[in-house]
C-alpha cells in the first residue's frame, strides 16, 4: 500500500500523461471504497445511504461535491441524484460537503492518457483503467477537464437509486408489504392503497438498514428530469443578489487584508518601507512575507490604500524581462532536443513533401490571463487546534493537504468550506490566494482574515495560458489536401502547474498537441510533433488548455491548405473526416448555417472542427467586413456529448464557451515588460463585450456512446473559425492571436 501511494502521488497530473510502467496498487487498495464522509456527523436517526444522500427527520440533503464555478454543476449533480431518488428539486437542499476521498473523480483518467478519445483499443483502455485507479487511491476530488458530467452521470444516479430502494426496503419492513408493490414519487414511498410515507419519516428506519446496492439504473425513457430544461437551483439567488460567493463570506470578528506580491512572478521581495502606511486609518498590521507585503485592516479599501503607500524593492524576474525574449525562447524550441513527442505520423510526410509544391506558415498564440470577474479571495482563521478556510477551489483536498503541510499540522485539522465561485476558467486550480491568506492569518491567530486581491494584483499574479508557436508545412494535389505536417512548440502549462502541485510528471505532455494530433481527418500524409519550450513565466490550465492553442494552429493551417487546393472548406473537411461523431457535428453546422447558400457582399464564413475532452465540436462563424472593421454576425455550433443533461444550461455554457474563445482570440493577451505583465486590468484585455457578441445557435448531438462534459470543448474551434471567416471575407490570413494586432473589430 505504501509503495502504491507514493508512486501515485508522484505520478498524478490532471490532463497530462503519466507513464506508470506496470505499477500495481494491490487489489485491496483499488477495490476498497473510501469511507462515507457523511457517516462521521450523522445523528442517530439520520440515513446516510452513501456519500451523496442524507435524509433526516427534517429534510433531504444532496451533496454536490463538484465546485460550482458558474457552469451549473450544483444543479446538474442534484438533478442526477433526484432523477433516481424520486424527489423534486424544490424538496431538497444541497451542500458541497466536506472534501473527502469518496468524491474522487472517476472521469479524469480518460483525458490523462496519451490516446485519442475515440481509441477503444486494449492499450488505451488499460491505461485509462490504471489512471482511474490512481485517481481513486489518491482520492482526487477534482473539478476540471470538463469531467463533472461524465464523473457524475452514472455514479450520482446510482446514489439516488440506492437511497430510493433502501427507503422502499424500510417501508416494506414497516408495513409488511413486499418492496415490489411499493412505488416512489415526490419524496415519498407510496403504498398500493395510495398511502404516502414521506422519506423524512422513513429516515430513522432506513438508517438502521444495510443499503440496498444492487440496483439497476432506469431506462432513459423513464427519465423525468434528465434531458428536460430545469430552472437551475442557483438562478433565483443569482437574479436577486442573494447568492453568496467566496468574496462575500462574513465570519464574526473578521478583519480585511490585501497583498502585493512581486509582480515579477516567482521572485522574492527584497525589502520595503511601510512608514507612510503605518499610521493610516484602520491599518492593524503590516505583514512582511518572503514574496511581498500584506496589510491587515478593518476594511478592504483601507488595506488597498495602505498597500499603495508602501515602497517595495522587488527582485528580478526568473524569466525573460521583455516579451521578445519569450518569443525567442519559443522560436528556438523547434529542435530535436526539445521534441516532447511525435504524436502522430500517418503515411510518410518527408517523402510526400519531397519535390512537392510546399505551403508553409508560422502561427503564434500569446499568454492569456484567466481573470474571472470575482477576484481571488479567501477567508482563513488559524486557531490553536483547527484551521478554517472559506474559499472556492477546484481541488479542495489538495488545499487541505497543502495548508496542513504549510502549517505543520494534520490534514484532518484543516476544514475547507468550499464556496460558489464567480467564475474560474482554471484560475481556481492554483493556490496563491490560499497560501497568502494562511500566511497572513497565522500572524493574527484566532482572527478570521479575509484576503482580497486587487484586480491589478490578480492580473499580475495570474498563471496564464501557455505561449506557443506552430510551423506548418503541407501540400495538395488534384484539389485535395494530401500532406499536413505540423510542429507545435509551447511551454508546458501542465508541467508548470503540476510542479506547484508537488507532483511533477514523467512522460510527454498530452496538452501541447491537444486538439491537433487527435484531428479526426484521414489525410494521407499527416504528422504532428510537439516541442516543449522550457518554462518561462509560470502558466496553468486555461479553459480548454492545450486545445485553445493547438486547435487554432491545426484548423487554421488546414484551412490554408484547403484554400490553396481550391476546395470548399466545409466540403473538403467532410471529405477528410474519418469518424462518425466528428462528421455528425460538421454536417450539423453545415445544415444549421445553410453553408454554401448565397452571402451578401462583404460577408465571409469560416468553419473549424476540434475535438477536445472527447467532444468533437464544429463551429461556423459569419463575419462582415465593414468600413469600421470586422463585425461578427452569427455563429453556429454543434457538439457531440452523448447526452445533454439540461438543455438550458447546455445552451448557455456552450454559447459562453464560444464567446470566451472568440473574445480572447480577438482582444486578449498578456505581454511582459520589465519582468511584469503589462496588462493590469479590464481596460487591457476584457475578452468580449456585449456589443461585439454575435447571434449564436447551439446544437447538442447525442449519438456518442459516452456522456461528455461541455465546459471547454466549444472554446478551441472559435478562434480558427473566426480567422477562417475573416480570410473568406477579406483575404487576410490571421496567423497570430490576438487578432486585433492585424484587423480592427467593430
Amino acid at each position, binding site marked *: 500500500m505504501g509503495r502504491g501511494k507514493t508512486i501515485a502521488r508522484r505520478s498524478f497530473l490532471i490532463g497530462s500523461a503519466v507513464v506508470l510502467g506496470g505499477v500495481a496498487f494491490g487489489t485491496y487498495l483499488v477495490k476498497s471504497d473510501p469511507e462515507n464522509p457523511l457517516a462521521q456527523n450523522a445523528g442517530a436517526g439520520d440515513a446516510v445511504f452513501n456519500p451523496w444522500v442524507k435524509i433526516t427527520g427534517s429534510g433531504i440533503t444532496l451533496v454536490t461535491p463538484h465546485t460550482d464555478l458558474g457552469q451549473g454543476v450544483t444543479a446538474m449533480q442534484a438533478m442526477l441524484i433526484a432523477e433516481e431518488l424520486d424527489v423534486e428539486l424544490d424538496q431538497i437542499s444541497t451542500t458541497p460537503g466536506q472534501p473527502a476521498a469518496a468524491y474522487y473523480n472517476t472521469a479524469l483518467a480518460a483525458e490523462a492518457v496519451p490516446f485519442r478519445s475515440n481509441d477503444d483499443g486494449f492499450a488505451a483502455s488499460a491505461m485509462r483503467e490504471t489512471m482511474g485507479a490512481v485517481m481513486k487511491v489518491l482520492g482526487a476530488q477534482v473539478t476540471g477537464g470538463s469531467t463533472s458530467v461524465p464523473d457524475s452521470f452514472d455514479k450520482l444516479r446510482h446514489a439516488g437509486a440506492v437511497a430510493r430502494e433502501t427507503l422502499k426496503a424500510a417501508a416494506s419492513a414497516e408495513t409488511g408489504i413486499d418492496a415490489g408493490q411499493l412505488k416512489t414519487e415526490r419524496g415519498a414511498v407510496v403504498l398500493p392503497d395510495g398511502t404516502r410515507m414521506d422519506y423524512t419519516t422513513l429516515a430513522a428506519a432506513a438508517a438502521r438498514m444495510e443499503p440496498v446496492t444492487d440496483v439497476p439504473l432506469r431506462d432513459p425513457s423513464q427519465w423525468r428530469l434528465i434531458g428536460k430544461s430545469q430552472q437551475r437551483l442557483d438562478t433565483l439567488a443569482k437574479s436577486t443578489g442573494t447568492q453568496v460567493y467566496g468574496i462575500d463570506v462574513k465570519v464574526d470578528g473578521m478583519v*480585511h487584508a490585501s497583498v502585493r506580491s512581486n509582480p515579477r512572478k516567482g521572485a522574492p521581495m527584497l525589502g520595503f518601507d511601510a512608514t507612510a502606511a503605518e499610521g493610516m486609518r484602520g491599518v492593524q498590521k503590516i505583514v512582511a512575507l518572503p514574496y511581498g507585503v500584506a496589510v491587515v485592516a478593518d*476594511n478592504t479599501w483601507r488595506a488597498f490604500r495602505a498597500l499603495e503607500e508602501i515602497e517595495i524593492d522587488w527582485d528580478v524576474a526568473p524569466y525573460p524581462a521583455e516579451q521578445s525574449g519569450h518569443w525567442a525562447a519559443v522560436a528556438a524550441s523547434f529542435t530535436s532536443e526539445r521534441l516532447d513527442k511525435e504524436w502522430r505520423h500517418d503515411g510518410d510526410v518527408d517523402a510526400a513533401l519531397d519535390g512537392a509544391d510546399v505551403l508553409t506558415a508560422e502561427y503564434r498564440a500569446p499568454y492569456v490571463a484567466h481573470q474571472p*470577474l470575482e477576484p481571488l479571495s479567501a477567508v482563513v482563521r488559524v486557531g490553536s487546534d483547527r484551521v478554517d478556510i472559506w474559499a472556492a477551489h477546484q481541488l479542495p483536498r489538495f488545499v487541505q493537504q497543502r495548508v496542513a503541510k504549510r502549517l505543520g499540522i494534520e490534514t484532518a485539522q484543516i476544514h475547507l468550506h468550499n464556496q460558489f465561485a464567480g467564475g474560474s476558467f482554471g484560475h481556481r486550480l492554483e493556490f496563491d490566494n490560499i497560501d497568502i491568506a494562511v500566511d497572513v492569518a497565522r500572524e493574527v491567530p484566532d482572527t478570521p482574515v479575509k484576503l482580497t486581491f486587487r484586480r491589478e494584483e490578480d492580473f499580475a499574479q495570474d498563471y496564464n495560458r501557455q505561449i506557443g508557436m506552430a510551423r506548418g508545412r503541407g501540400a495538395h494535389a488534384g484539389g485535395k489536401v494530401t500532406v499536413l505536417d505540423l510542429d507545435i512548440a509551447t511551454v508546458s502549462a501542465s508541467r508548470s502547474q503540476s510542479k506547484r502541485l508537488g507532483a511533477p510528471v514523467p512522460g510527454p505532455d498530452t496538452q501541447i498537441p491537444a486538439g491537433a494530433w487527435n484531428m479526426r481527418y484521414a489525410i494521407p500524409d499527416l504528422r504532428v510533433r510537439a516541442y516543449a519550450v522550457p518554462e518561462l513565466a509560470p502558466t496553468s490550465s486555461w479553459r480548454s488548455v492545450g486545445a485553445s492553442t493547438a486547435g487554432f494552429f491545426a484548423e487554421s493551417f488546414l484551412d490554408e491548405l484547403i484554400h490553396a487546393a481550391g476546395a470548399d472548406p466545409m466540403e473538403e473537411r467532410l471529405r477528410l473526416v474519418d469518424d462518425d461523431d466528428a462528421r455528425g457535428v460538421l454536417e450539423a453546422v453545415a445544415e444549421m448555417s445553410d453553408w454554401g447558400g448565397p452571402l451578401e457582399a462583404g460577408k465571409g464564413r469560416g468553419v473549424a472542427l476540434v475535438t477536445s475532452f472527447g467532444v468533437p465540436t464544429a463551429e461556423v462563424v459569419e463575419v462582415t467586413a465593414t468600413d469600421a472593421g470586422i463585425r461578427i454576425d452569427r455563429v453556429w455550433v454543434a457538439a457531440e456529448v452523448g447526452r445533454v443533461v439540461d438543455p438550458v444550461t447546455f445552451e448557455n*455554457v456552450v454559447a459562453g464557451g464560444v464567446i*470566451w474563445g472568440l473574445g480572447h482570440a480577438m482582444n486578449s493577451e498578456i505581454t511582459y515588460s520589465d519582468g511584469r505583465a503589462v496588462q493590469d486590468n*479590464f481596460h487591457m484585455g476584457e475578452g468580449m*463585450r456585449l456589443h461585439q457578441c454575435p447571434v449564436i445557435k447551439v446544437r447538442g448531438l447525442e449519438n456518442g456512446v459516452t456522456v461528455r462534459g461541455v465546459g471547454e470543448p466549444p472554446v478551441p474551434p472559435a478562434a480558427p473559425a473566426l480567422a477562417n471567416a475573416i480570410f473568406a471575407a477579406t483575404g487576410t490570413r490571421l496567423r497570430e492571436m490576438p487578432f486585433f494586432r492585424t484587423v480592427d473589430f467593430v
Partner: protein
Amino acid sequence: MKLMVNGREHEVDVEDDMPLLWVLRDELGFTSVKYGCGIAQCGACTVQVDGIAVRSCQLAVGDLDGDVTTIEGLGTPEAMHAVQQAWVDHQVAQCGYCQSGQMMQATSFLVLNGTPSDDQIDAAMSGNLCRCGTYPRIRAAIKTAAAKLQGA
C-alpha cells in the same frame, strides 16, 4: 455621515473619499454589490443613485448626493422586479457575479428608454462585463422586461 440605502437611513463613520462600493460592502454588509475592477471598467459594482446607474467604485461617499438603491431594493426573491423576473425566465446567470450590476444597469436604462432597439441595448450594456458570456441571454431578458414594463 448619513446615507439612504433602499429607503433606509444608515450612519457610517468613514473617510469622505472611501468609494461607495466599500461603504456598502464592508461597512453596511451589502455584498450583492460586487468588486470587479475598481476602475469603472466592468460594471459589477453598479448601483443606482436616485434611479440612475452609477459605478459605486468611482463614487466617493462624500460626493454622494441622493438615495442609493442596490439589487435588494429592486426586488426580493419573493417579490421580484420585472427585470429580475426576466433574468429568471431566461436563466441568464452562469457564475452570476456580474448579474446584479447588469440588472441595475438594465433597470436604469429601461426607465430612460422603455422601447430600446437592439443597438441601444448594446450601447447601454457594453460597459458591463460578463466573463462567462451570457450576453445573448442578457439581450433577450432586457427585451422581455421592456415588453412587460410597457404593458404594466
